[in-house]
């Protein structure tokens, strides 16, 4: 040890193995290029998020006031004056109807999978849910048309209405809630459920007093993700609800159609009218606000569950 300590730095002792400094430099250079490319990829990928928001606010800012949100569209072409109240009310209709359909179904099947399901049933049902999530929304629209809206042949004959549109959106929402409920329940430490069952609780009592409470965060995540997904959907509504510039008079049959934000944006951007394009952008801001508010809620729930459960 003493000899080693005596060697001075500037003596430049022979290295134990030859270090090819050029090689190391080259390696570091390549690594630097990789860092640069990765950062560029991220910047280009993140660019549309900011540019979409910027563009929408920059074009639509003059309409971003309470009047726009709280009045019905009027004028010619329809929407040139007034606001988007019909679409906001319509979205409430659609989300409520879809949730009434999808929430019990999704939570129920999630509970079944984690309480009673055998391994094979679980694998099969999970695959089924994933497949349903993968089906393009325009295909769901056609299914919804033939099941709910059509006036001829089999089906419910609801016409182009909030009920038909909402239930079609419910089809889209169900697998999302089912998957996330099952995941949330599977994340509960198994001691919780087994402890309750070992104390002589029935599965229903275990569900009521343990599972629902422990999985609440995950279940809400599923519901909010489902809502976030369906308020952006346009394609299924094209064939099941379309659009209404006024207030609905019912939820089925003639007069049962409702407005919808995504649909309103789609229709306005199709019109060859500058003012409607601007209003489409203003409505996009409102839609994005809803979506990012739900997103924020999701993250809050996630944070709280992780912290307190």
């Amino acid at each position, binding site marked *: 040890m003493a000899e080693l300590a005596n060697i001075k730095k500037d003596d430049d002792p022979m290295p134990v193995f030859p270090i090819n400094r050029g090689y190391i430099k080259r390696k570091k250079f390549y690594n630097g290029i990789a860092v640069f490319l990765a950062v560029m990829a991220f910047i280009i*990928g993140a660019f549309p998020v900011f540019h979409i928001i910027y563009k929408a606010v920059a074009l639509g800012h003059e309409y971003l006031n309470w009047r726009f949100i709280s009045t019905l569209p009027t004028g010619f072409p329809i929407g040139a004056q007034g606001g988007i109240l019909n679409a906001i009310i319509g979205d409430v209709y659609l989300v409520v109807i879809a949730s009434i359909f999808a929430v019990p179904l999704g939570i129920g099947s999630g509970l079944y999978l984690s309480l009673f399901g055998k391994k094979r049933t679980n694998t099969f049902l999970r695959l089924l849910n994933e497949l349903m999530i993968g089906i393009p929304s325009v295909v769901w629209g*056609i299914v919804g048309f*033939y099941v709910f809206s059509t006036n001829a042949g089999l089906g419910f004959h609801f016409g182009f209405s909030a009920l038909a549109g909402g239930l079609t959106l419910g089809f889209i929402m169900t697998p999302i809630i089912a998957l996330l409920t099952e995941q949330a329940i599977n994340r509960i430490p198994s001691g919780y459920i087994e402890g309750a069952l070992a104390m002589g609780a029935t599965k229903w009592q275990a569900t009521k007093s343990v599972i629902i409470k422990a999985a609440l965060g995950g279940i809400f995540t599923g519901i909010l993700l489902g809502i976030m997904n369906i308020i952006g959907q346009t394609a299924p509504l094209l064939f099941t609800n379309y659009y209404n510039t006024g207030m609905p008079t019912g939820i089925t049959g003639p007069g049962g159609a409702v407005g919808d934000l995504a649909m309103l944006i789609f229709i306005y951007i199709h019109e060859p009218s500058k003012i409607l394009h601007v209003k489409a952008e203003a409505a996009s801001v409102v839609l994005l606000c809803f979506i990012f508010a739900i997103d924020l809620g999701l993250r809050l729930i996630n944070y709280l569950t992780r912290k307190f459960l």
Partner: protein
Amino acid sequence: MFNLKYKDDLYKFILSIFVLSVISVFLIAVAVILFYSYPAIIRYGFSFLWVKEWNPPKEVFGALTFLAGTFMVTFLALLFAIPFSFGIGIFLQEYCPLFLRGIFTVIIEMLAGIPSVVFGVWGVLTIVPWLRESVEPFFDRHFSSIPFLKVEENIGYGILAASIVVAFMILPIISSITKDSLESVPKIAKDGALAMGATRLDVIKDVSLPYALNGIYGGIILGFGRAVGETIAVVLLIGNQAIVPKSLFSVGYTISAVLANTFTFAVISPIYASAEVELALILLAVSLIINIVGRNILNKVIGGRFNRSQFGGG
């Protein structure tokens, strides 16, 4: 005791009704599409796939034009999206400083949350003018001799505009799955390589990527599934003309765009409606196959964990 046991059986019975309803939603979807496309399948057979003409009054239906458009948009979107999502996944998982990783991941997830109609509006008001005023004149001046890059009409709408926007829409899916796959690489393998003096790039190239490659393939396959079915943004951007696209800049039509534009008129005539539903059947079949393959790969690599970037607006 009879009481308690009875209650649990009742509970199981009620829950199994819910499960059966979920299964029946899927079965109804498949059955409706098969039932209503049956007349067209019988009448046109496989010629539906390679006949070019789509003529409702003459009742001649062939999907080749739309298949070509769908294929081109999907292929180009994947071509644009794969390198970038690859880079984003690597950046987020390997290079990004830890305190920024959370917020940067949120930004990419926000991209997944933006509805496709908003993407479409952004494309119409941003991408289309940019293509029309900068990109297309440039290509017209310098590359007009190459057939694939020929600018036929300088309007901005077309295959390229649609595929750029679709590429941004599938970016979060592929990049989040790339990130998750890279995350599943055992830390000890990476640390070992780093301790041997490897640079980060060496670790990515020789340790992480070979391990994560299957997952990345799964992500690409799921991205393909999303791109094939993408409707609203494509309707707004592709130009909606039933011609087989010959160049990057030409207009076209995709299966999903045809459905969105004409299905409500088609239901007047049974055979026309049936032909349209057969288009939907193609989309359904592709999405089912793609998802079975992609999920199988992903379940092996990242254990079926569901990333929220995989649900997007439609």
